[in-house]
């Protein structure tokens, strides 16, 4: 329960282990047929190192779908591989296979049917002298099916990457959803342009981001007692995820 208590905080230097570098694979296929899809492969670094992650080059990557299309991805910049011809389609199941440094990693993801994002409104929360603005995506959750959503914000064209927003309709099936995206800090200012992209994701990808959020939650008073690496849908111990998802977006001016 975050209760705005007065707490002193300071940076401390800890004696943290340096685990052996592990492979991190992030891949996605979307229903945006105008461009290509990307798979990124990097490695972990130690906690006190620079946030510069070594790329894994020269991997052999293929994405195939249940309709028989197979795409061999080409490396554009180190660690970044893009598809050549694959077109994402809702309802299809995609299989990722990565052969990197003699190890084969595979993952499967099914792209759900799209859900329309109606509009973007804004919610003001006031408390303790501060006025924080949150974005509110408005949409109708389809009744009778399990839906999983992910939201990504772009503020004035730049990705806002400080928070993870995933939502499932376990307690909200069939409702018209108007839940705010609660940022940890006040990023939105009146007059800014905000674009919110809503992804419909499958359950394993939802679980992945939900666990990632619980383990990295910066909230001091409600951190999970025992953070763990989120369960990835990629085999062989790779960190990261492979997500086949739809995208709908709305852009609005913050008020």
């Amino acid at each position: 329960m975050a209760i705005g208590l007065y707490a002193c905080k300071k940076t401390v230097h800890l004696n943290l282990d340096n685990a052996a570098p592990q492979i991190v694979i992030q891949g996605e296929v979307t229903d945006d047929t105008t461009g290509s899809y990307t798979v990124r492969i990097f490695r972990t670094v130690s906690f006190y190192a620079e946030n510069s992650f070594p790329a894994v080059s020269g991997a052999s990557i293929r994405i195939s779908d249940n309709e028989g299309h197979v795409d061999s991805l080409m490396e554009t910049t180190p660690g970044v591989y893009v598809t050549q011809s694959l077109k994402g389609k809702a309802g299809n199941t995609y299989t990722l296979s990565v052969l990197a440094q003699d190890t084969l990693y595979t993952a499967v993801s099914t792209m759900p049917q799209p859900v329309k994002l109606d509009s973007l409104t804004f919610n003001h929360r006031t408390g303790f002298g501060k006025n924080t603005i949150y974005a509110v995506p408005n949409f109708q959750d389809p009744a009778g099916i399990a839906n999983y959503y992910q939201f990504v914000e772009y503020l004035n064209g730049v990705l806002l990457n400080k928070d993870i927003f995933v939502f499932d309709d376990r307690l909200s099936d069939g409702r018209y959803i108007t839940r705010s995206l609660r940022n940890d800090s006040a990023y939105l200012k009146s007059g800014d342009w905000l674009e919110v992209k809503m992804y419909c994701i499958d359950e394993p990808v939802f679980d992945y981001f939900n666990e990632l959020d619980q383990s990295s939650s910066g909230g001091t008073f409600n951190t999970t007692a025992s953070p763990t690496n989120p369960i990835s849908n990629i085999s062989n111990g790779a960190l990261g995820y492979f997500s086949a998802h739809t995208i709908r977006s709305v852009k609005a001016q913050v008020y």
Partner: protein
Amino acid sequence: MIGASVVFLETPNVSAISNSYGFYSISAIPGSYTMIVSFAGYANDTVAVYLQRDTSISITLENVAKQMQEAIVTAGRNNNVTKPLMGVQKLSINEIKDLPVLFGEKDILKTLQLLPGVQSAGDGNSGFFVRGGNTDQNLILLDEATVYNPSHLLGFFSTFNSDAIKDVTLYKGATPAEYGGRLSSVLDVKMNDGNNKEYHASGGIGLISSRLNIEGPIEKDKSSFNVSARRTYADVFLKLSKDSNTNQNSLYFYDINAKANYRLGNKDRIYFSGYFGKDKLGFGNTFGIDYGNSTGTLRWNHIFSSRMFSNTSLIYSKYNYDIKINSGSNNIGITSFIKDLHFKEDLQYYANANNKINFGLDVISHTTSPGIISASSTSSFNPLTLQSKHAIESAAYISHDLTVSTKVSINYGLRAGSFMVMGPGNFYTYDKAGNVLDTTTYSSGKVVKSYFNLEPRFSMNYKLTSSSSVKLAYTRTTQNLHLLSNSTSANPTDVWIPSSNNVKPEIADQVSAGYYRNFKDNQYEFSSEVYYRSMQNQIDYKNGAQLIANENVESQIVFGKGRAYGWELFVKKKYGRFNGWISYTLSRTERQFTEINNGRYFPANQDRTHNLSVVGIYKINKKWTLSADFTYYSGNAVTWPSGKYEVNGQIAFLYTERNAYRMPSYNRLDVGATLQGKKTKKFDSNWNFSIYNLYGRENPYSITFEQDPDDPSKTRALQYALFRWVPSITYNFKF
């Protein structure tokens, strides 16, 4: 009076101790005797008695101001040496009143954390761990009623108002057979009966809270009552704020303790005790939570004969919370409760000086309503009612206090318990992934599953000399109510679930052994105890476990084992102008689950290697008393990153093992001073000053990890500390 000592001068080796209701029984061959009755802090009463047949004698002892120099020599002061029960700590209300605590609020739970084997759950937190157990493994009783959440304001205060309390006993090691239901400990708190001769009022006014206590006779010498109430007013300061959003916030709690008793003739006495408390936290209109416990106990003491005493109780206990959220068009309300109806019959048979038999029966009907969600039509959430759960927990017990010889006394017993999971409802089984395999529906009154457990209890005392002994004990305990809590701090919304077709009872076996020695005519008490406890069917959670509003919450749990062992050292100076104690615990508590750390034993979250408390109370003169307490403990086990990577432009942390790291250690010194005020026959007052955390150490409350906002190319660890210096002033009065 509980624990008063009765002895015949002529047979000093035979003594009796009054029970929880003040009943005592002492036997001797017919003749003339001088009976001495004593209790710490009260003047001895000496009565000439002539025993020819069974006789009943009631004694009232008069309170005296604490003696400054001489120790009052009485029997019973070496009970810690002579009685077989071990791992028992008694807290004196007088001691509690002198110790400095956070916000100046005298608090038995905070004082308990200064004893060996008892660890605090953290700054401000009322939760405690006994011998490596979890916070839900302590049975907390207020006049026999279970208190499910003994904390106010998220743990900064406890639900125990010291004014209303008479006696506090903590059983850590050898729990008598009459108690059951939790694995680690029993905290038995008894309320004040009230003065049955005169009316008195007492209370205190402090910076954060105030309290008032009124007691007196209902019918002089026959009956009395005691009512205490208190309220915090931290939010009064919020209301003074000009900011219209701050002044609508609420943050307070209040509680009321009431007890009344009535003597119906010489053989019967009835009691009523009740507690009601409520916490309210709210942010204007957008969010509010209120929660609290309510308990009620109706008791009938009956004396069958001079040897047989009976206590019959009817007990009610309820803990509930209520949340209201009003955000944009999202309006939801959530309520949840756990409720007990409890019948208990306890009989004590004092066969002779060497034998006392205790037996009885205990039946509790538990009902939990895990959550009812109400939502408006524009809300993003569906209304939902989680199934209520019902269970009947019952036990029959018998125990025997036996003095085998002048050197050996033992207490052995058996508690036979059953836990029946009852319909109505749907009961599910799950596969490994947590999906429902099948559903069976049971109607009301049908038994879904029953568990039967035998809990032997044994403790033995071998007297080496008149002031030293060794003790040995073995106990088995079981627990059928489990608190699901996944976060670092205890939440008032944590869910209690009963054992079921999926969740088995937790079982613990503990052996303990110790050496006890009193010095200088029982002025000093020393003990050295070791224990080992093994636990079965311990609970932990799957990755990403969904505990909130989940009908299938039982699919989110994994089960494993635990073990805890340690060594407790305790030295106490009990009487005199200066008194206090030192307690030190060296311990380890571990868990083992197939799904975690590849099935290896790992330290539990609450594992802390060293735990040291030093307490001193010094009465300088008639006006001033100084007190201080110092606490040190090693950091508990935590899971920290061993690397990092990037996901979607965000830094994510790499974890390799659960609980492989340690928080930094904790230490804190509190000081207090009490200034005796005006004192007459009718009026007594004092001023109490205290500073919590005298040297303002930033004791780490939690450590989090994030991208450095000042240098995005790096990540940093951020440490949060809660309290630095917290001064407090309270004015106490009594008339």
